[in-house]
């Protein structure tokens, strides 16, 4: 999932150019934006295509290696060999592997679908789309929570470096990193749902507000596992920027402290953290799929677990494919965000 322009903590200073942000003599803002967009689009095609091809191939052939016969899972114990053969033929499992793969790819290209579910007969695309809103809701909320937690924690730590808050912020995330998402989910359920009764212990309540309320704990569980590396990164970057010369200059020029913090320090320090977030997108989506089961939420993750258990290959393939697309798109979006935030680019536009 390596995308050009991603960087891990520390190898990219906000002031340093990373090469793809437009040449120094871009003429007008409009052109600059168009150019950036064009580059983004080119990059999207250049990165998405190979990744997708890789995913399609891996998803198809890896599943073939998993033991367990889908026909036997569908027909049950009493199936006669003749029935099993007939069903395998119906499912296209008796065709040569190359032909099966061809059909698989053709279905993806023409219908954006990996076939009908072997168990329910519902088209995979429809089955996933029906469950996607809930899962996306958890992802979106988790991102909001992660940002809402990361920024104040990192600021508090950076502001009194070595002080109490800094120690706490450094130690707690270390513990957080060691806790798997499902475990955090269980703890949240026990404390906030069972003991305090503030949230439902699981499932999704009806209505938009009910849905939102039901997704708070799952999203928090995902966010909590996501926050530690982000806080570490942002804190480290903040500390570096705080001592930078331009900050001293700004202070000397009498720019208010708040403006320095939000306009200059935070924006400068955020970039590597956002890049790091891009790297963690796969983790975010994986965490969402797991947390659904813990919270009894019937989203894409639960569908994935069901389908793996019943060897419902088309659905498993479809979910893997859609998740891969989601990871790539979000990674690109994060990248675009980083470009937008970049102080140099912003400076030129204003």
């Amino acid at each position, binding site marked *: 999932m390596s995308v050009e322009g991603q960087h891990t903590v520390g190898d990219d200073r906000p002031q340093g150019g990373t090469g793809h942000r437009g040449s120094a003599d871009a003429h007008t803002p409009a052109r600059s934006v168009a150019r950036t967009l064009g580059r983004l689009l080119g990059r999207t095609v250049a990165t998405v295509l190979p990744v997708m091809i890789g995913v399609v191939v891996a998803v198809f052939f890896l599943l073939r290696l998993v*033991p367990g016969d889908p026909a036997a899972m569908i*027909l049950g*114990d009493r199936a006669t060999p003749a029935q099993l053969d007939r069903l395998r033929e119906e499912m296209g499992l008796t065709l040569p592997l190359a032909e099966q793969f061809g059909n698989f790819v053709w279905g993806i290209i023409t219908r954006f679908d990996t076939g009908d579910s072997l168990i329910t007969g519902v088209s995979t695309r429809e089955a996933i789309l029906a469950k996607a809103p809930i899962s996306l809701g958890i992802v979106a909320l988790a991102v909001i929570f992660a940002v809402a937690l990361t920024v104040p924690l990192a600021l508090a730590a950076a502001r009194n470096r070595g002080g109490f808050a800094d120690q706490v912020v450094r130690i707690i995330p270390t513990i957080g990193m060691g806790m798997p998402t499902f475990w955090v989910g269980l703890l949240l359920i026990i404390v906030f749902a069972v003991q305090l009764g503030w949230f439902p212990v699981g499932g999704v309540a009806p209505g938009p507000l009910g849905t939102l309320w039901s997704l708070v704990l799952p999203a928090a569980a995902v966010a909590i596992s996501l926050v530690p590396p982000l806080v570490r990164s942002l804190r480290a970057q903040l500390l570096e920027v705080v001592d930078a010369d331009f900050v001293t200059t700004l202070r000397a020029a009498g720019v208010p402290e708040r403006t320095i913090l939000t306009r200059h320090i935070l924006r400068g320090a955020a970039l590597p953290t956002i890049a790091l977030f891009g790297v963690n997108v796969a983790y975010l989506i994986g965490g969402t799929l797991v947390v659904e089961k813990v919270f009894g939420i019937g989203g894409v993750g*639960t569908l994935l677990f069901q389908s793996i258990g019943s060897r419902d290959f088309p659905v498993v393939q479809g979910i893997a494919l859609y998740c891969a697309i989601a990871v790539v798109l979000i990674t690109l979006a994060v990248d675009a965000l980083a470009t937008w935030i970049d102080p140099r680019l912003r400076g030129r536009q204003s």
Partner: protein
Amino acid sequence: MKFTARARGWRIAAVALTAALALSGCAAEAPAASSGSGEGPVSGGTLTFGRAASVTDLDLHQQITANNAFAIDKIFEPLVSFDADGKIIAWLADYEVSGDGLTYTFTLHDGVKFSDGTEVTPEDVVFSITRHLEMEGSPLPIEAPVDTIEATGDREITITLKSAYTPFLSELAGFSNGVLPKDFGGANEAEFFKSPVGTGPWVLDEWDPNGDLSFVKNEHYWQDGKPYLDGLVYKFVADPTQLQQQLVAGQVDAVEQVPAANSAEVGGNAALQLIEAAGWSADQVFFNTLNEHFADEHVRRAIAHAIDRDGIAQATGFGTSEVANALVPTAIEYSANDQGYGLAYDVDAAKAELAKSKFADGFATTLAIRNDRPEFAQIAQIVQEQLAAIDIDVTIESLDYAVFKERVYANLDYDFMLNNGQADAPDPNGIISFQTDVTGFSKSYWTSFSDPEVNKLVEQGRTTADGPEREKIYFKIQKLLAEKAPFIPLSFPANLQGTTASVHDYTLLPNGSVRFQDAWIAQ
């Protein structure tokens, strides 16, 4: 049928509710006791039932799995059924059996209607049972030698058998013999099962094959005044911990499964009730008799003596399961559980048996278990330890259920295994045939065990009319099986479900299904 939990349920309910309410609520579970105290069933409300699997299909002849069956039997009903004790009772029709056991005459009750309001006719019944008989590879086939099935009157259906077959009524009572409209009421077959019409108390409302399913009451239901509830929701909750927590939090009114380990916790919570019914299944050790070690009867007997079944039942059943001393569960007629046939836990006897075998010095072998049943992992460890005492070195292999099926069922590629044998009907023939008929699809429950004497007795059992003579035959079979030990029944687990204290007349059947038409929720 043991109802140990009902007594406990009473005590718990008595704490939570007024004594009168509790008494009327629980006593009404028995069909004879109508609620005389005036605190009868209350109509209305929706009951949310938490289940671990979604309903994927409603075709009663092809798609009987536990998750589908318990929805199918809410929509389709058979001519005869069974009560909470497993006794066969008339359901849609009264029945009469001729003296020679060959002719079965069914008379439909007056006013039995489908959920769309049309009257059920004998032609509908003929159509339904014929479709099932002609279905190849039905999960719950009619094994009876049916000769003809005809509509012989306005409300009468006559079924004749080629030869006497005593378990026929119990087969008819199964999930796959519900009545549906002739020719699917004119609908296309696939469409019909997406929005089925039956005589059952519940009508499909909304259904997500990967999620929840909801029912509304059948306004034309033939049992007057029932169901009491307006709606019933099958809520899909994949995680067992989550399932129980939702019950505790009152997010669901009932849950389909309470692990034995949690039964005391549910039973001890005043806001909840533990619903317990003796089941029709037996946890067992099965031997691959094609394996060189387990082809030897002495080895199998040695293992039977080496395993402490009481210890296993206690360790894994937490007081809810019964020690198995014979194959047929105690909730089924002619169980020989009290006859003392099972080989007793006796390490010296085990060693003596092993000494008589070709493997007197012991051997190494592999025990296959399925990982979807956590209690099997526990049992496997106990078995491993106890067999070590007689120098049999056991490696436990835990397999994903899909892999387990492929290895054990399809390819007989295993040494010995732990599994659960489940009867589908309250007649001993089912589970016994299933586990001793090497020519059947299950190849004697994948043990490949075959014994001419047992086979002859099984044949006799099927054709002998109910009574002491039939009992004698089944006792004899169970004794032979205990001695030859192609499998070792360990325990009969109870069906354990849980409800909140406000749910009443929750009728849990021995096959694990629930009669929700009797249930009501105190307001």
